[in-house]
């Protein structure tokens, strides 16, 4: 029985966890296995968890404005620890200005979810994009 494993991470000093916690509940209700990191994790800790738990999706919640440089760092450390960011979905949720979207996408982020995004949309994105990304990779 396969399950989609999702890591929900709060990285940096940002303490706003309402969204992350609500999302964790809803993803569980949608049939995913959800690992929540808790608050105040460093990029290394998030990457370590992502690799050791061999997750399919890394969801980073950040509302402190520090998404750059923190999110690219998470991706960088995943690679450093032997994980393959090209095989998993990297998602970011929070207060992300539009101008930062290209930078994040370039760093390897697959989806950016602004405040108000219905959770059903996030779930749909994961179910549709994960297999697509993996098929693209297994050449």
């Amino acid at each position: 029985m396969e399950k989609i494993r999702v890591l929900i991470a709060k990285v940096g000093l940002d303490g706003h966890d309402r969204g992350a916690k609500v999302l964790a509940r809803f993803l569980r209700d949608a049939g995913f296995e959800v690992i929540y990191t808790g608050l105040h994790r460093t990029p290394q800790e998030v990457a370590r968890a992502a690799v050791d738990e061999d997750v399919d999706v890394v969801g980073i919640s950040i509302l402190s404005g520090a998404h750059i440089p923190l999110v690219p760092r998470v991706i960088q450390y995943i690679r450093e620890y032997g994980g393959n960011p090209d095989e998993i979905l990297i998602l970011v949720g929070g207060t992300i200005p539009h101008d930062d979207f290209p930078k994040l996408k370039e760093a390897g982020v697959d989806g950016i979810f602004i405040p108000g995004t219905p959770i059903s949309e996030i779930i749909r994105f994961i179910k549709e994009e994960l297999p697509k990304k993996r098929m693209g990779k297994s050449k």
Partner: protein
Amino acid sequence: MNVEELVEGILSKKRRFLARAITLVENEHPESKEVLRRIYPRTGNAHVIGITGFPGVGKSTIVSKLTEEFRKRGKSVGIVAVDPSSPFTGGALLGDRLRLEGADVNKNLWLDENVFFRSMGSRGRLGGIAKKTGDVVKLLDAAGYEKILVETVGAGQSEVGILEVADTVVVILMPETGDDIQVNKAGILEIGDIFVINKADLEGAENVERWLKYMLSLDEETVMELSKLSHADEVKLMQKLKWKKPVLKTIADRGIGIKELANEIERHYEVLKKNGILQEKRREKAKLSALELAIEEIRAEIAKRYKDLLDREMDPYTLADRIVKEVLKC
């Protein structure tokens, strides 16, 4: 990653390969069996410790503190935390990792090279979680982790099954003020080697302690009686073991009682080793495991080969007789 790479990676302690192998086991990937076969010779070195108890007793905190303590004693630690999956949606909230904290901010357990933490969902009653957990433990064992903690909620048959993989089982309780001690209903008392009353500063700690010690002394009396009847083997084992089940008190989030708990866990391991019990138990488990694996495959084969027979409208008892006759003919 192919089987070669995975096996090589696990045995050279490369975390990425260990993590992927665990996923294959969880997903019952056909390659997982081959991986397990190949790493099997390198297992048997780890001390497997089961940690169980009702939700809220502080299992995760105790796992975290024990990990810290074992690290202080120079041991590498692998942790498997099993959480129940929702029977309706199949999803799970695996919330044990986030409780992994060292008291020293500079000695971060998440980034400790000698700590490996894996969260698992039970994935349903028929998911074979006990077997999977056992396999994951073997992988961690082969990867060289010396102490392997298996954390699971103690409430039900499947969880008890999970704990059969452990050499030492620690049952954690909470103080209770009533007479109707809750944990009595869970059926996990029999499997405990060490009992811990956590949050021991709360009211009701002595109450539970008294009750436990009483139940455990009953256990010994029953044993004496049974020895006079039929359970000679079981009794011989227990007498050989010479292990009186200790009842400890801890206040885990303050680190109180953890050293003593670690000491008892180590002591139990020594007793198991000294009396040859450890080897015996493992041999037993390996036999059972082989039997189960064989039965699984045979069952699948039977369902395939005798599909037509199975589809016949007959009472199941007659049907079973027929199938056995067919099988024995082969």
